[in-house]
């Protein structure tokens, strides 16, 4: 379903060895014009997000387990991060979108593909200061575009 090329970088061994993983992450991102980098870390790398946003990348975090987070990082010309969540049973898509939206910077956009209209997501996003629009595709799937409301 996801045809975008994905590079995987597991920085857990680096962290276990007491090394700083930022240089390895930035090196992996250097060649990332299209496609995604799937970063595996033992905790949510909150300080990494601003550094990524400054360099024009968006990050979609997902907590796989108690000691494993997967962060999907991608560069997009118009700052849109695309998530294809059609393979996930509910409410996992809702969780993924909320986690991804937390790292969405000013001007950033999320484009989410789901099997159902994300009805219950809309309330949460509105509460967090996001706007969104959903439309159904001819194939019966839903595409939702999410962006942060920028107050004047």
């Amino acid at each position, binding site marked *: 379903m996801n045809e975008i090329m994905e590079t995987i970088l597991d920085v857990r061994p680096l962290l276990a060895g007491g090394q700083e993983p930022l240089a390895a992450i930035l090196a992996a991102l250097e060649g990332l014009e299209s496609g995604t980098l799937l970063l595996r870390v033992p905790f949510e790398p909150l300080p990494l997000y601003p550094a990524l946003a400054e360099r024009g990348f968006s990050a979609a975090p997902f*907590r796989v387990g108690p000691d494993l987070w997967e962060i999907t990082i991608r560069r997009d010309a118009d700052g849109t991060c695309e998530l294809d969540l*059609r393979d996930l049973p509910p409410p996992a898509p*809702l*969780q993924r979108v909320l986690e991804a939206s*937390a790292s969405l910077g000013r001007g950033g956009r999320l484009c989410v593909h789901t099997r159902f*209209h994300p*009805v219950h997501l809309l309330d949460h996003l509105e509460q967090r200061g996001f706007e969104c629009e959903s439309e*159904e595709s001819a194939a019966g799937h839903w595409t939702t575009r999410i962006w942060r409301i920028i107050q004047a």
Partner: protein
Amino acid sequence: MNAPAPAAAPPRSPAAISLAFLAFAFLALLAALAVLVRRPDLPFASPPGGGSLALAHLLMLGWAAAALFGIAYTVVPVMLAARLHSPRLARAHFLLHAAGLPWLALGLLAGSPADIVIGGGALVAGIVLFALNVMFTATARNRWEPANLTLLAALFWLCVSAVIPWLVANPAAFAALGRDRAWLLAIHHYAAVPGFLWLGTLACALLLARQQATGGARPAGGTWFGLALAQLGLAAAAALDPAATPLAHRLLPGIFFLAGLGFAADLARMIRQAPQARGPALLLAGGGLGGTLVVFAWAAATGTPASAALPAVVAALHVALLGLAARFLPFLVWHLRCAPRAGRRAELPGPTQLARPRGLEPLAIAGLCGGAYFAAGSLASHPAGIQIGAMVLLVAAAWLVLALRPALRLLAYGD
């Protein structure tokens, strides 16, 4: 990363209403089972006294209907691809249901017609609010899907079931129909059990299974077949006067058995695409729904009267609902407590972690055994079977609360 402060459940979210209905349903189930353990002879009282009527309505409206409403308020908007039309109407429905049921039960117990009218009126008003809320939520696109129509059919038969006591209380009204009181009461029972409870449970199971089927399977021919056949059976029940027609004791369960096979085929197809849904809760739900098929087949083969077969169907459906609630409750808690903080607090559990609590396996076995005893006790008109079944189901329900402790603890999580 400059996210606003964490907030409580969104005000428009129907998850809080769903949780309130499920909590109410559990309390009603525990109360009804406790009464059955103490007075297992109540279901066999002939003619049914105030106690047996109060108990039947506590189980049907207090537990089963409230649990179905609880599931429907969260699942139906997803299936209709629209936000719930009015959470305020949903809250009013809950208040009417929570106030009307004890009023009705106490009225039945005391034999007070005024209290029965007030309690029953509040319940009917709540059901009307639910139906209006669903109708206004429905979009033209999704209204005619078979699972949604099954839910609509269940609501229709609930309304039929609710209207009949008014006719029975008004001899002039049913004299005009040219039928007697026993005929009307038989329709009341058929509309309530296969019409509302069975179809309603199947609709919720279909909607939940469709959501979980990641391969995109959806209710199709089997559900259409089952729905059409079930309506035929219910129409036949209304036309045949089952209380006076021995043939109906074989024909009607036979029709419902075939209809159930249609629903089961679609459910099985969707569950095959939902490996994450497999587990004790699914075992309970599947076992309960399978139990209804066994009871219908048994009744069709032996010609068991509806007065014995329908309570056995209800017993199997209690087990199915216990399974659906066990699967659904953790997701509600996650929606209410974890979703508002998702992406902000790493220590909160994900929905999958909450949905797989430890210790549900004994619950599934206890629930299935309790339901089987209960159903067998009803079919054989044996109070001891009902008593043992109620005891085991009581333990299973208490076990469920214990198993869901991690999820329930989150409800106390401060904002």
